[in-house]
């Protein structure tokens, strides 16, 4: 939370978090304000996202259940609302097993560092008009640097367990990291290019306003932005080890991958980190492409900005869950193939597309239509050509011996 003074022209709800912070800080002496405000920001972030993690696990289980035509957890508390806490108690009371030959220090450090690294990315996300923990000039860079380090923790876990399955999982995780870090970053570059800044608050501010009064200036609503958003979400799925890219913990092949030798609370920490990572990447996607805390229409601004941010974030997270419930896992060769042969070329072309977009920013009238058409063609044509050439001859599968 920045230390800007509270503007007076805004609605009460919009500034309520700031006023609450100022009221709390007022209880402390002036010399402690700088640290107290940081600690407060951390506490709020960890508290809010911790609670969100708890209910995200419940939502995921409920949604997966419904998609598989069963009710999901509904016994603990009203409609299962206390289930996350029952799970927490269970995880806390389980025995913590460390393999005899494991590297004890690394083994214990891996889950902790994973959670920490998944969390620190959240510091630069603007959750509302005035709600950003730290305003960095290179926030986007910082975010992805922190995100990339999480794969190192997974490797740590795999290596320290001294288990073949864990090690295989760790190697897969690294292959995945190298494959998907590239398209992830390449899909972000166009946004930075068009917005002309690496600061998340400035990127959100650049997406404010409406074209023709109803079409928000969100990046996802431009051809290059939509393409970049799709690439980003695919790469984000892979980055957060979610299905269909959950190869590091492919339970049918690797028991539980890098989680094999973890139990009790350490296991819960990995679980938590996965959700934090997913939430952080979704929050970044919201910030970069979906207009951050901006309301979709002018009159909808009666709701405070952080509500809009939360709504977009939850929608993306529900999308993650939906995808998990639908798609089967990829093979490692398919995974790297998809990254290098499809996502990276698409992202590079998209970069050129975004460059064209920002060069033609001054066009208006009929030229505006030309601008849209060219940009759209620059997305659709390569997509069709690439996918045709890449995936031709791959299906449908013919079963020679089994009756179809």
């Amino acid at each position: 939370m920045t230390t800007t003074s509270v503007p007076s022209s805004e609605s009460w709800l919009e500034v309520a978090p700031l006023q609450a912070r100022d009221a709390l800080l007022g209880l402390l002496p002036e010399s402690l304000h700088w640290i107290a405000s940081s600690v407060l920001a951390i506490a709020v972030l960890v508290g809010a996202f911790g609670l969100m993690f708890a209910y995200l696990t419940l939502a995921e289980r409920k949604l997966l259940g419904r998609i598989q035509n069963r009710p999901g957890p509904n016994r603990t508390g009203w409609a299962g609302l206390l289930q996350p806490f029952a799970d927490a108690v269970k995880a806390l009371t389980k025995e913590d097993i460390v393999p005899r030959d494991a590297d004890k220090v690394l083994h214990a450090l891996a889950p902790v560092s994973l959670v920490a690294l998944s969390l620190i990315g959240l510091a630069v996300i603007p959750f509302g008009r005035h709600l950003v923990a730290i305003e960095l000039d290179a926030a986007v860079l910082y975010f992805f640097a922190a995100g990339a380090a999480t794969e190192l923790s997974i490797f740590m876990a795999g290596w320290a367990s001294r288990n073949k399955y864990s090690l295989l999982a760790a190697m897969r995780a690294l292959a995945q990291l190298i494959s998907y870090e590239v398209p992830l970053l390449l899909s972000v570059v166009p946004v930075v290019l068009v917005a002309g800044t690496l600061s998340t608050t400035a990127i959100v501010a650049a997406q404010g306003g409406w074209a023709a009064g109803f079409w928000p200036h969100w990046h996802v609503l431009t051809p290059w932005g939509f393409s970049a958003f799709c690439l980003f979400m695919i790469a984000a799925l892979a980055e957060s080890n979610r299905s269909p890219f959950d190869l590091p913990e492919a339970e049918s092949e690797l028991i539980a991958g890098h989680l094999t030798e973890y139990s009790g609370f350490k296991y819960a920490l990995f679980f938590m980190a996965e959700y934090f990572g997913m939430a952080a990447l979704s929050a970044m996607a919201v910030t970069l492409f979906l207009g951050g805390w901006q309301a979709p229409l002018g009159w909808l601004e009666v709701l405070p900005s952080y509500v809009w941010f939360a709504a977009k974030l939850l929608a993306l997270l529900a999308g993650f869950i939906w995808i998990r419930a639908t798609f089967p896992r990829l093979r490692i060769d398919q995974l790297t193939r998809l990254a290098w042969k499809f996502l990276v070329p698409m992202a590079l072309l998209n970069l050129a597309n975004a460059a064209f977009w920002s060069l033609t920013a001054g066009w208006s009238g009929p030229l505006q239509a030309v601008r849209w058409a060219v940009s759209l063609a620059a997305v659709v044509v390569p997509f069709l050509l690439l996918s045709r050439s890449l995936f031709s001859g791959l299906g449908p599968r013919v079963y020679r011996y089994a009756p179809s």
Partner: protein
Amino acid sequence: MIGKGLLQGLAVTARNLVGSYHDPDRYTTIEYPEVKPALPEAYRNFPFLVAEKAEDPLGTLRCVACQICEKECPPQCIYIVMDRDEKGKARMKPKVFDIDTSVCMSCQICVEVCPFDAIKMDQVFEIATDERFNALLLHRDQLAKTNTYFHQIHPTEAAEVDARLAAEKKAAEEKAKAAAAAKAASAKPAPAAPANPTPPPAPAP
């Protein structure tokens, strides 16, 4: 178009998600302890003893303690002791009838061999106990259940059994009547007709 399959897959899961809220064909879960599942009629697990009257189940058991089932039971989990009066004469009913359900393998052989339709298969599946040995050893009083109950759980089989028993009873009565009539007929001209080829049948037991 590339990616069409992915969208189709997403549509399938979305249809399931929505459908599970309003379509009972999709939502197949039965929330068991509150809602009991409807068991198929042929479902069976452990045997019970058929009694005629609910007021006096032990007195009206169909079982005559012939011990055929005890001998036939493959895992030997039935134990029967005949009830005898002071003189040692069999009362034709069991004093002890135990089935060890921890051993019983639900094969239904006891049901098939019983000549008196006295033992049938039950449908009680909530058999968890907090004691491993004695609680799983069912005694006569736990095993005795009424014919009405048998009708409830296996209506087809029970109707068939009832019809057969009634027919047998009727046949036996007619036979006894015929025998009595024959006896009466043969009693009068006894000295006149010594060449009666067949002896009168013994009265039915």
